[in-house]
């Protein structure tokens, strides 16, 4: 089996600013722009994600998994190492990115879709599906500031999931909407898997990791502890917690 994503020696450092002179005055007065210590959020992480598999990232708070996820989503660029993708990648870290409150649901589908990298043609062909999945047909021409928070996230999720990338990088956004909508989302993820796509996700719910993922990686303080079968990794992680 080929690899969908290859993560090689990825490190990500952050600057912990003791002072950061973001104004011209302070920069000149202090004679420098900033003084900082480096903090390693992700340290020399290497793993492969097989094409068509679902891969989970686990770890306690501050373990660096969100930073790694952002590197995978190309929002951060790693200081060292490289990440190679075989196929089109899309990230789902937040629903409804770039929604404009004054615009209608329909206009926002097109806007959000193009932010996520879809062409107008693609959105046209998926438009009905998106509206259908979100369940907000009735209000699609209303400005979304009038939407309930549930409708808002459902619409956002529907657009995001319709991107149909080869590789989907997702944060814990699975828990949106009511019970019925969550079930629809889970089904959608299963469809995703069935059609041979790769999913990488971060979750705190060990149940959903065991349930959905084939493989998992456990991070602790930026270091990779274990990579392997999700059940094994989860049980080792839980054991370490005591």
């Amino acid at each position, binding site marked *: 089996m080929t690899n969908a994503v290859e993560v090689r020696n990825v490190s990500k450092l952050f600057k912990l600013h003791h002072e950061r002179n973001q104004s011209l005055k302070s920069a000149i007065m202090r004679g420098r*722009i900033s003084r900082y210590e480096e903090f390693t959020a992700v340290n020399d992480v290497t793993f492969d994600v097989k094409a068509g598999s679902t891969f989970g990232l686990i770890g306690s708070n501050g373990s660096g998994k969100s930073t790694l996820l952002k590197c995978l989503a190309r*929002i951060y660029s790693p200081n060292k190492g490289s990440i190679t993708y075989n196929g089109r990648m899309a990230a789902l870290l937040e629903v409804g990115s770039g929604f404009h409150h004054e615009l209608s649901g329909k206009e926002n589908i097109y806007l959000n879709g193009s932010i996520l990298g879809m062409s*107008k043609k693609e959105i046209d062909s998926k438009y009905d599906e998106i509206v259908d999945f979100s369940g907000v047909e009735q209000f699609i021409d209303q400005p979304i500031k009038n939407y309930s928070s549930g409708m808002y996230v459902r619409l956002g999720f529907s657009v995001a999931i319709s991107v149909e990338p080869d590789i989907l990088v997702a944060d814990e956004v699975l828990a949106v909407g009511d019970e019925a909508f969550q079930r629809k989302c889970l089904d959608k993820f299963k469809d995703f898997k069935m059609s041979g796509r790769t999913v990488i996700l971060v979750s705190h719910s060990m149940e959903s990791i065991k349930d959905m993922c084939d493989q998992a990686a456990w991070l602790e303080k930026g270091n990779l502890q274990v990579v392997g079968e999700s059940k094994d990794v989860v049980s080792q992680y839980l054991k370490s917690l005591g």
Partner: protein
Amino acid sequence: MSYIKDVFGSRELMLNLAVREIKGKYKKTILGQLWSLANPLALMLVYTFVFAFVFRVTPGPGNPSGIDSFALWLLCGLLPWLFFARALSAGVQSLVANESLIQKVYFARVVLPISDVVAIGYNWLFEMLVLLVALVIAGAKVWITLPYLLLIMLLMFVFAVGLSLILSIVNVYFRDTEHLISIALQLWMYLTPVIYPLSLVATQSEKMGPLFGSNITLMDVYSLNPMEQFINVFRTVLYDVTAPSATSLLTCFLWSFVSLALGVLIYSKKDKNLAEAL
């Protein structure tokens, strides 16, 4: 090179973001798009009153067009200037204002300032159309110089985009930039022949002669301002209705090219680090 390809691939997103700006701006207003004319018209009334009526500034009739109206003469320079000023003030904040988007989704960040300038350019286009109609009614045969007008508008747009790119990045690291730029733009306007004719500066320059024993005149220093060149070409094309000199056009082209090249260069270097710098 791959960076430029990436940017080109995002043109649809850029247009969508520009449409978001344009549609969102005048939503729920009764006058809608007409509001974009309100500001230039108000300024025109004030400046015409102060400069043409109180100070008696006379730019003289357009040569060879023969139109003689301070208000029209003013608008030929004021509309491009207002576009430039608005583009810069919007462009400078474009990254900081879209912070949450940048931290959640990957896309070529360069589309943010460009789409802001495009949205402002759209309003400008609308204003210029109204001005063209007014000029035609006043008897100027502006269709003769229309190709020049389109060219200089394009160059002006590119110049504004380039500067916006540079400023938006600087503003991420120094948040003073957006406040500084609003003051700088006010000063800059008075250093540019927008509300007074260039001939007044030329007269002063001649009176003063060479500065400090060198052979540099006031006019030479004054002409270093790129906006002086742009505004002059706009006036030549719209008010005088004649072809601008090749030197002026070339100068404008160079300024646009340099500012865009610098902007793209900075972006291709900083683009990746923006999410954490914000």
